[in-house]
């Protein structure tokens, strides 16, 4: 039997309300409550560090199969663990699309063969993500899909979305939706407002998101289905979701850390690295997102990892693709937005990265309770460092955060009881 002991850290496990200095024991890939006779435990000193469950990413684009020149399950999971993420749910934005059982099984198999962390595929809601006919949802679930999503393409047709929610409910599966009216954002590059007017760039009005958030909430209410709104970005979205949850509608939502630290003013340099979907909003929206996280309306923080090759980010801003590689900067950006600003306690932040995502993905993960998978992260909360995209493990380095001085870093990561990442290595 193999064992590990992480000694003397501040153990934060929001799922069970634990936040105290102590030890974490792992044997044979599981959390145990103490030393077992006859087991040689490798010791890790975590004095002054935070020890918590590994982070769970609810929506990364791993690009495999189809775009393995951009990212693969190997490079994507390597990037994940470097960011403290031990489980990744991947969007079906692949070629071919994960809209059938074989495709789900391929990803799971590939993850076992070559991944450094757990991978949970999301299956498509509709065939080829076209928003027209439902994909074979039942077989996707049987094949291992943990939830359903058409990725960054909204299911624009309300009737199709309704049937999707109804049908997925039968399999206990949540629909992860990108709420954005495609016609209202056509030709859009950035948030519609003062800066889009200033820069002459196509606007993506906040209302394009809010209209679909309201529609989706109404459809979830109608069908009793389970809905997850991916990376919402506006004040009114948060408010609609807050009210719906008060009424008991099964709706959850996520935000990205980059939407908490940057605003639309950033686009003034025409830096394509700041082109993201949904777009960076203005200050008042950012405030509302933070408030939504603080009061629990938003249960999940997602890095929305989206690799884009350098040559495509060098294109003109209106044709360059959207996206930021987020996995490796997830934690320090969260710290800057939420801990340094004293808006959140550590345990609340960690819940949005662990048990929050586990709940909406339906995973028995995200906790250090005895018997759980030993996916553990050791964090140095105080170390200051500079983000250097050249050191990313992702195949792409598309980020606006290169050169940023940040605080807090993932130090050691265990997946199923094995150390898979260490900052010193």
């Amino acid at each position: 039997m193999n064992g590990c002991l992480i000694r003397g850290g501040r153990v934060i496990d929001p799922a069970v309300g634990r936040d105290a200095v102590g030890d974490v024991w792992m044997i044979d890939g599981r959390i145990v409550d103490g030393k077992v006779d006859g087991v040689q435990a490798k010791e890790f000193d975590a004095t002054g560090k935070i020890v918590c469950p590994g982070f769970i990413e609810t929506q990364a684009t791993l690009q495999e199969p189809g775009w393995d020149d951009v990212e693969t399950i190997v490079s994507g999971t390597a990037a994940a663990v470097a960011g403290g993420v031990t489980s990744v749910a991947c969007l079906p934005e692949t070629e071919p699309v994960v809209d059938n059982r074989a495709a789900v099984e391929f990803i799971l198999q590939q993850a076992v063969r070559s991944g450094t962390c757990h991978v949970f595929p999301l299956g498509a809601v509709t065939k080829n993500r076209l928003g027209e006919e439902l994909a074979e949802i039942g077989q996707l679930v049987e094949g291992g899909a943990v939830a359903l999503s058409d990725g960054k393409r909204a299911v624009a047709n309300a009737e199709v979305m309704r049937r999707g929610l109804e049908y997925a409910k039968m399999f206990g599966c949540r629909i992860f939706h990108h709420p954005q009216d495609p016609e209202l954002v056509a030709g859009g590059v950035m948030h519609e407002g003062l800066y889009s007017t200033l820069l002459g760039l196509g606007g993506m009005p906040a209302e394009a998101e809010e209209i679909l958030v309201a529609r989706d909430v109404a459809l979830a209410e109608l069908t009793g289905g389970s809905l997850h709104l991916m990376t919402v970005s506006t004040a009114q979205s948060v408010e609609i979701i807050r009210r719906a949850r008060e009424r008991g509608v099964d709706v959850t939502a996520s935000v990205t850390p980059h939407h908490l630290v940057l605003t639309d003013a950033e686009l003034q340099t025409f830096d394509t690295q700041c082109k993201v979907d949904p777009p960076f909003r203005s200050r008042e929206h950012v405030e509302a997102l933070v408030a939504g996280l603080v009061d629990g309306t938003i249960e999940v923080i997602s890095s929305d990892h989206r690799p884009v090759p350098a040559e495509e980010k060098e294109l003109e801003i209106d044709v360059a693709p959207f996206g930021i590689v987020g996995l490796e900067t997830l934690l320090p950006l969260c710290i800057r937005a939420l801990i340094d600003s004293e808006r959140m306690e550590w345990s609340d932040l960690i819940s949005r990265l662990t048990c929050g995502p586990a709940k909406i993905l339906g995973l028995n993960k995200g906790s250090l309770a005895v018997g759980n998978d030993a996916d553990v992260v050791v964090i140095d909360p105080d170390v200051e460092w500079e983000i250097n995209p050249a050191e990313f493990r992702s195949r792409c380095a598309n980020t606006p955060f290169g050169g940023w001085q940040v605080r807090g870093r993932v130090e050691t990561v265990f997946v199923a009881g094995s150390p898979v990442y260490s900052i010193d290595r």
Partner: protein
Amino acid sequence: MTTPSDDQAGTGDGPVWTGKHLLGLEDLSAAEITAILDQAAEFKKRSLEPNKKLDLLNGTVVANLFFEPSTRTRTSFSLAAKRLSADTIDFTASGSSLSKGETFVDTARNIEAMGASLVVVRHRSPGAPHQLAGRIKAGVLNAGDGTHEHPTQALLDLFTIREKRGSFEGLTVTLVGDILHSRVARSNIWGLKKLGARVIVCGPSTLIPPRIEEFGVEVSHRLDDVLEETDCVNLLRIQFERQRGAFFPSIREYTHFYGMNSERLKAARSDVMILAPGPINRGVELTQDVADGPHSVILDQVTNGLAVRMACLYLLHQSHATGGDG
């Protein structure tokens, strides 16, 4: 050929502009704009002499990179460079770069490698010249970037107004039409506000971008309401090629509310100036008789454009030669 001498244009004591690039008027101060206009006035004076050629940019290579079709701006820049004795490279490509092909940055780097020290860029994408400015050493001159800015057009509009009226104090300029898609409008707003004019933007509500009032302009939807208080009307071109979907019901309805015709001219001030950046859609933004009538300064604008572009090229060249910090 004239040689530089003590009375050479640009050696006065007035304010100077030492930018490394000319990307937009948003970035310039009133003094810098005035410096460019003063330089242009010098060049215009010289252009009335029989030998129009100056050897100020002798040995310098000016590249005109036009990634979007243009006749008048390209010709104007090309001639401006030649008047200053620069060698010119004209590169024209339509459409945007392909994802796997050569990017527009690559194209500019190639042209720079041929020795171009000033690059004039016209592009359909907002910010393309700004992206270039960060990646090449040559001075970048924005000749119109999508729906963002068109600084030399605004400078020549300012020059034309100043030439006729002397100053901008107390002057009301109304920009009419498609403000949303107009780079000319944005550059004009910055320039006019900085020099002290009052600016009204007038057009259908669908073509007025959000929060434009925050730039210090007034918004009107009825030309007839503001004509009386307007000294200069700048009739922007309807950008049919940049619009997606319908922003107004028909050209006939647009012309009904915003077209400049002899009726409206009668209601305007007796000394009203009619500007249009062109190419005009005759019968849409203005009628034939107004375009060719006594209030129209459309052809003066074209003439002045040459002097303004010479000034921009010359001053940029100077600041690169002397290591300016802009």
